[in-house]
């Protein structure tokens, strides 16, 4: 009989659905959480710096690196010719993205060489001494330039259509067209890119990289070095933020560090300066949306035709799936009876844009919400009324099919919006704001309620797979490893909870270990909000396998049946006997039971045929809504976000504390994207906002002054996800579309709400003031 202190305990610490703290929280606050630059360096570690070009588009006539190489402490200088096997790191295998520019510069700041030196300071100083001669070529910086000069695509565009959009537009009682520019966004992960390559024996290379995609880094390093993938091991314990910016953009630093490490047989660390990082790595795509909508006098949408043109930069990178996802979210939560959506992934002489939380979805959704706003102003109605008229309906309504022909089967947007409208007191506050605006000349207010419906799954179906590796050691302690990477979002914590819950042991018995390609192979990026969904299920599967073996063993040893064996807090109940978990493990080991398992998961049900634009690309949808209230100063365009109320759906939360953090953080990050974060290129194609002094992400004093965030606690996923939870990483980023629309309403007040202000984003104070001026002329 067990006599331990835990005898009477009926619960474990850290089960699924508990608000467990982030596993590294204690280390974060103590300064003892090691990021790659904090790890002890191998003896003799060298340091690298990028040599950047200063043309947006040019032939390289001559590169004189003699002054660079002559700096004392410089060990070598790498150019494209020094790549042992391949100079290509294009993630979509289009061979359009060199590690180092070779013969041609395609964006201002494109790296042309790398300096390897005894110290980082020496490498950075030396990198400035190159003399590069160019022959300038015509440049295309902006989407509009690209369209005007033939509109070359970096990847094939997509068309989604259902019904007869053109015909329905012509037959519509009302119709309006417009354009909207939606700005890009710099990730501004607080920890910049970094890679540390350590050469091993033979062809082996171990690389520590701040990456969301270790398997991709592994493949790219192998490709550039010309070694089999099995020679390269990539490790990452944690990132200081990723947000999509470390899905493909770490390839260049890892590849260069590995090439130098191979050549010099010394460890090489590559940590670019913040300015170089912002110059040489991709960002969220900015878009130009052209829309044409037909509707009736009540505000029912009859047809939508929209084109989404994106600045993709010089190469494809992930622009194909990003622009696809924009189209997948142009409908947001609204049924379009007739629809045609097209994308234009345009080539420009700018850094190649990449993944960023939402992955095109936010830009698609902003365009869709602009259409709602336009209809509301045209009809003199509250945009919320137009939203309610156009929400997707239930299965029997005939209004449940998306532009990509997937049925919306888990629709809860009405309940979310109705509850939030009531709890935030939306109607009374809107009336009070309209009254306020009547009596205030300079300060104006606005309020808006906007919904979010976001599709969960990689739209490239085969990526929806994951693996986990679980070992139980003879003392009953558990080693957990899986393909998910930790960038602050808490996936390590959530998956550990899954394991603790499965075995019914305290979570501190689970050792969370660094993600490594050596333990779980062929992983997908931790992206598309999928980390917990996929890796949680893979870990669950590994636990299931081990538990089945333990149950079979226990049933045999204790002479009972499997049904009489159950996992209870920190014990296994076998018949009437409570056996401590560690004791069962000890006995299982002695009986030669395998205590290790590789788990695997592949998302069911989904499929997607891009050529026909039909399928079920998403396993399920996550929903949410926000009400935002703002004040603007009509003399300067400055504004404040006074209050935000959020109701968000995470299914049955795996960890409510972490999920709330994702929602609050995603909201503020999305708000920054739509308000103060502005990327600005000069006439030479030089990005001039390449540091926090010039690129302004939100501060504590920018967050909503009143910020009420609630989970829709009644929700659970209709699909069999881990614990019936839903993904949370990306969907909240789109909640602050409500801030944009509230700003728009405040602007519209100066013309008595007769005109849609058509605010472009980011809605900086300048754009607000200029919109006020425009409306005052009307």
């Amino acid at each position: 009989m067990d006599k331990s202190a835990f005898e009477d305990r009926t619960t474990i610490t850290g089960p699924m659905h508990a608000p467990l703290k982030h596993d590294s929280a204690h280390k974060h606050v103590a300064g003892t959480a090691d990021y790659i630059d904090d790890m002890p360096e191998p003896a003799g570690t060298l340091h690298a710096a990028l040599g950047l070009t200063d043309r947006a588009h040019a032939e390289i006539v001559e590169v004189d690196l003699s002054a660079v190489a002559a700096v004392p402490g410089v060990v070598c200088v790498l150019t494209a010719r020094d790549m042992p096997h391949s100079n290509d790191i294009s993630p979509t295998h289009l061979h359009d993205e060199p590690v180092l520019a070779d013969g041609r510069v395609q964006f201002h700041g494109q790296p042309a060489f790398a300096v390897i030196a005894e110290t980082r300071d020496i490498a950075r100083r030396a990198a400035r001494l190159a003399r590069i001669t160019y022959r300038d070529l015509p440049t295309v910086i902006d989407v509009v330039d690209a369209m005007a000069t033939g509109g070359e695509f970096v990847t094939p565009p997509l068309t989604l259509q259902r019904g007869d959009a053109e015909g329905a537009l012509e037959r519509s009682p009302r119709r309006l067209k417009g354009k909207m520019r939606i700005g890009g966004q710099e990730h501004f992960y607080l920890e910049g890119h970094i890679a540390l390559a350590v050469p091993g024996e033979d062809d082996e290379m171990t690389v520590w990289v701040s990456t969301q995609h270790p398997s991709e880094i592994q493949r790219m390093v192998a490709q550039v070095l010309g070694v089999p993938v099995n020679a390269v091991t990539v490790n990452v314990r944690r990132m200081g933020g990723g947000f999509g910016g470390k899905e493909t953009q770490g390839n260049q630093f890892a590849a260069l560090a590995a090439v130098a490490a191979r050549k010099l047989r010394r460890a090489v660390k590559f940590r670019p300066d913040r300015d170089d990082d912002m110059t040489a790595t991709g960002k969220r795509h900015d878009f130009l949306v052209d829309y044409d909508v037909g509707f009736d006098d009540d505000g029912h949408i009859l047809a939508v035709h929209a084109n989404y043109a994106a600045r993709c930069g010089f190469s494809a990178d992930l622009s194909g799936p990003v622009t696809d996802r924009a189209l997948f979210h142009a409908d947001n939560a609204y049924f379009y009876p007739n629809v045609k959506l097209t994308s234009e992934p345009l080539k420009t002489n700018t850094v190649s844009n990449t993944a960023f939380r939402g992955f095109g979805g936010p830009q698609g959704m902003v365009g869709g919400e602009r259409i709602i706003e336009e209809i509301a102003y045209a009809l003199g109605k509250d945009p919320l009324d137009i939203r309610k008229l156009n929400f997707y309906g239930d299965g029997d309504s005939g209004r449940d099919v998306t532009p990509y022909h997937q049925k919306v089967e888990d629709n809860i947007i009405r309940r979310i919006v109705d509850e939030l409208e009531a709890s935030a007191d939306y109607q009374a506050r809107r009336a009070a704001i309209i009254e306020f605006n009547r009596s205030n000349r300079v300060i104006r207010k606005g309020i808006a309620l906007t919904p979010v419906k976001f599709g969960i799954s990689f739209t490239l179906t085969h990526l929806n797979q994951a693996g986990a590796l679980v070992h139980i050691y003879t003392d009953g302690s558990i080693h957990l490893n899986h393909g998910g990477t930790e960038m602050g979002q808490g996936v390590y914590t959530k998956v550990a909870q899954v394991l603790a819950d499965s075995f019914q042991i305290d979570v501190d018995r689970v050792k969370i270990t660094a993600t490594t390609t050596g333990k779980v192979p062929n992983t997908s990026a931790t992206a598309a909000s999928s980390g917990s969904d996929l890796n949680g299920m893979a870990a669950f599967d590994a636990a299931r396998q081990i538990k089945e073996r333990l149950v079979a063993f226990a049933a045999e040893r204790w002479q009972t049946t499997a049904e009489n064996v159950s996992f209870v807090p920190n014990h296994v109940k076998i018949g009437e006997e409570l056996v401590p978990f560690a004791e069962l493990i000890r006995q299982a080991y002695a009986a030669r039971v395998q205590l290790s398992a590789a788990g695997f998961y592949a998302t069911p049900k989904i499929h997607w045929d891009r050529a026909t634009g039909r399928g079920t690309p998403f396993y399920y949808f996550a929903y949410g809504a926000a009400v935002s209230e703002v004040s603007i100063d009509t003399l300067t365009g400055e504004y404040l976000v006074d209050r935000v109320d959020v109701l968000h759906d995470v299914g049955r939360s795996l960890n409510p504390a972490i999920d709330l953090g994702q929602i609050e953080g995603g909201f503020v990050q999305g708000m920054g994207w739509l308000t103060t974060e502005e990327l600005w290129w000069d006439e030479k194609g030089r990005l001039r906002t390449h540091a926090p002094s010039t690129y302004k992400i939100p501060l504590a004093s920018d967050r909503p002054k009143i910020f009420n965030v609630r989970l829709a606690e009644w929700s659970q996923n209709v699909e069999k996800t881990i614990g019936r939870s839903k993904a949370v990483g990306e969907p909240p980023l789109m909640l602050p579309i409500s801030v944009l629309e509230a700003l728009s309403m405040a602007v519209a007040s100066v013309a008595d709400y007769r005109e849609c202000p058509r605010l472009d984003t980011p809605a900086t104070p300048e754009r607000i003031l200029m919109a006020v001026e425009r409306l005052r002329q009307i």
Partner: protein
Amino acid sequence: MAQESGSIRFILNDTEVALSEVAPTATLLDYLRLEHRLTGTKEGCAEGDCGACTVLVGRLVRDGRGEEGLVYESVNACIRFIGSLNATHVVTVEHLAAKDGTLHPVQQAMVDFHGSQCGFCTPGFVMSLYGLWLTNDNPSRAAIEKALQGNLCRCTGYEPIIRAAEAAARERPSALFDPITRTREAVTARLEALRQTETIVISKGEDCLILPVDATDLARVLAEHPDATIVAGSTDVGLWVTKQMRSLNPVIFIGGIAELQRIESSEAGLTIGAGVSYTAARDALSAAYPTLGCLIDRIGGDQIRNMGTIGGNIANGSPIGDSPPPLIALGATVTLRLKDSTRSLPLEDFFIAYGRQDRKPGEFVESVFVPALHAGQHFAAYKVTKRRDEDISALLGAFRISLDGDRVKTARIAFGGMAATPKRAKAVEAALIGQPWTEDTIRKAQAAFEADYQPITDWRATAAYRLLAAKNLLMRFFLESTGEIVQLQRFEEVA
């Protein structure tokens, strides 16, 4: 000839260090991370904007009554040069938790309220919150936000960090618990012993850094080294090094010169020494001139305000420095010193052209005198930025007018961000003087801005916006003088 010694001495957490080999522009951050492997302090941007490198620096400071005390301030280690640390106590995040690993209340609250996600910014936040915790046991939300203006977080949206700050403020287990409180007396004594009494010179090869012992010594050293770079807070010069990779030699650190740290108040006005930080000047300026306290609160974050000086802001001559426009509007004069002679000139005349000031080789800015506001003078300064806090001005307007009855008697208006230097709006002034103080006059005077300024378009604003906003700031100034509420305010109270 003053005596010379050759080492920088300070306390790092609980260890006294004496460095006799220091490069002129070696940064505190690299020193912590590379020399001591104190890797809790992070590099996020290397330009004093993100706060991931925040540490506290304690030093003996004389307050308004002349009492000396040990004051700890948050600073950015990434742009803080080692040479400026003599006789200070540097406290890093590793110093907070007890030896047995028990977290400090500030750290524990950050854990309890889920204040970290990726964790990279967290040590910097902990240090800023710790600086607040030391001085305020019941901070308002305004005070917390102000303490965090210099810290960027990309994950949390800040809400849990604010809640942690509120909770931590109430947690004070015992005086012995807190590492700074516990050692306050001992550290004070040690810093007194480390106080500089002679010129410090450290040179090796071409490298040379000098810490003059007083203003006369500074004048002497500058006369010998007219090409030297003077460093006070290094909030600007720091970036020449970390971003432009400039080699500066020699470097003269003036942070230890007590005479330059003085603020003298008289009926005529305020005299502010060139070494006075924004933080140190704030209360005196705020008391004497309306809106200047709020303006200073929007310059950088606490870390920058604790380091940066008004003298440096003037001497560097940036067209977008925030202190020159209000000082020009107030009629300030700047005093420069060359060897034993000083001269004073109107501040507006100091700025000759972009990047060019009226400062001779070997000359330095000693102080700035700001005339008191007379009864009947109205004054305000307004900063316009993309992001409200910790942003560089798109434009900044400052206005001082006096009325004779209902007519404008005098007007001094100056703007930053509108020209290559901080510059007066003389055409606008002329359009106001003698006219009735009415909205109609303002509307007519607004047009005169086009004669005064031809601003540029850059990443902070277009020329059209700058001009329009400048005109509107004049309207704001007028409307406020009539009592109309025309400015957004996040909080009623000032932090």
